[in-house]
């Protein structure tokens, strides 16, 4: 995967290296927006669960 390659910008902020004790500083930023989007998805879709009976 080259760095020049086209990339899809995901709906999740990259928090992997972000200090947990500084997350609170992100209150009004894309983090809050992402949480709101996630909440909206949960409200729309409920809690989807794939469940399969292999004997049908």
């Amino acid at each position: 995967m080259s760095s020049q390659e086209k990339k899809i910008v995901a709906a999740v902020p990259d928090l992997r290296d972000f200090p947990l004790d500084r997350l609170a500083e992100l209150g009004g930023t894309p983090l809050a927006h992402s949480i709101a989007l996630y909440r909206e998805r949960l409200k729309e879709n409920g809690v989807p669960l794939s469940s399969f009976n292999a004997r049908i």
Partner: protein
Amino acid sequence: MNNGVAELKSHRLPETAFTALAAGRGDPAVIRLLQGAQQSKHTMLLHAIAEAVGDGDPADQGVVAFRAGYELLTRIQAADPGGSAWLLGLPHLGGWAHDGLIRLDQDTSPDFAYLACAAAAAAVRAGVPFELDVPVRGGHVLLPGLGRLAAGDEAAWVQLRYDGKHLAVGDSVVASRVTLGPDHGPGRPVPHWRGTPAVRVLADGLAWDILLVTDDPYLDRYTLPMSAGLTDHELRRWRQLMQAAWEVLVRHHRWAAEPIATGVSVIVPLTPQSETDLISATSPAAFGAVATSWPPDPVTMAETLVHEFQHVKLCGLLDMVPLAESGPEKVYAPWRQDPRPAGGLLQGIYAHLGIVRFWQSQRQAETDPDNILRAHVQFARWRAATEDAIDTLLRTGCLTPDGVRFIGLLRDQERALADEPVPSPAREIATEVALDHRLTWQIRHMATDAAAVATLADAYRRGEPFPQRDRPEAWVEEDVRKLGSSVRSRLLTMSYLEPPRYRELCAEGVLPLSEPDRLLLGRDAEAAVRAYRDLIAGSADPQPDAWVGLALALHRLPASVLRDVFAAHLPVLFDVHSRLGAGHDPLDLAGWFG
């Protein structure tokens, strides 16, 4: 470490990764991209819960435990970033954070104290000292991802003290760090400690480490309960099964084995409701966990892993890139008994692309004639079903532009398999079982226009020709008629999934089958047609199952208009006949339709 708020970026998915995932693949590097996004998602949800704790009662023990757990996790991150990343990537934590957010949105309190247990587990693993009050549940302190400590039944809370080498529980129990890990099998028991059962399977140099989780409430989230309290004997059997399934995957499905080893870290054994059911499940809340009841053989376990890992990948991708919008419409999914929304159908299609690919290879790997038949039927049935379901999904109009692109790439993979030959007997079984499933579903969930049905019944009764206009409209309406999975349907499925058992049952002649069903399964299609017709015409009550049987019996005869009418318009035929009442020949009515 990134310390700047202004530098906060979103995860980015390279086009090659998207394309690989759409093709049903994705190598370990792609899976790690999904895992990275899940770690961020869990962190994001943890932050949402932490914000809610800010409004919590400072005297509440759960709130106190959460704050202490969060502070400990912060210290672990500073001392050993890999240690906090391990915890934030666990499906256990994902399930807890997901449920916590839902509880907040429902104005109920999350299980705040679980974070203290989770942070304690990460600290023990990383060697970071702490003192922490944690809840005791069922006489144990749970350390997610590691195991559980016996803490007695006297107190609801207990203090853990850890100096980086030894963990003290209250005033009595002390355990060494080196012993506080998952249980890999034979070994000396550790007093007061029950490690989470773990398996390391190995085949042709490729290893996979898995936890068998049966005690974490946030992984007990499937349609069946987790199999709590597995005995040593049962654990041995699971370990043996995982090893045997791994050998199948590594030797015949390497394309799936390596990504599975990267992306699946937890198996949740489920307790089925009946011995014959095989239920497997995946939750988007617990990325990396796969739940399944006990499968009958290693090949089925391998297929289940491929199937469920497809869901795992798609759940991870959907958290990054929306592919389908929610819509009110529910449609037919050839692998489900209930109508599904577009998002559910997309999941099923993706899972079945993996299944088709699995059976394509497995056909070459099998040597026993019964197993070869099973592999061919599975391949043929799900290949056709996936192709049909893609058409259905596109018709819903619920896909986003990325979703349309995704399904287009997926369809290319499906079409590449279209010309793969399948022996006639297997193809015929696959077609019949698929028809049985579709028609049973239609009888159950397809409603028809009552006025139009009445008009048709009146015209038929008066001996008029079929009206020269469109047949009555039909639409999906859940459980509009009562019809479950029949003994006949189960036997048809058994005929290729378990041929020896099927032959045994047929030979015993003790099955609770109607005479028409017995004739159908005995492959006397003409006699079955007559028997179904007589049953339907002579019954005062509607006989939905017999209508499906009649369609199947006709399907075994040479092509005819009757056969096509039954396959294409069964719910309308059934409703018109129900309105006419007993005494009317269903074949004559179908001929009139044709």
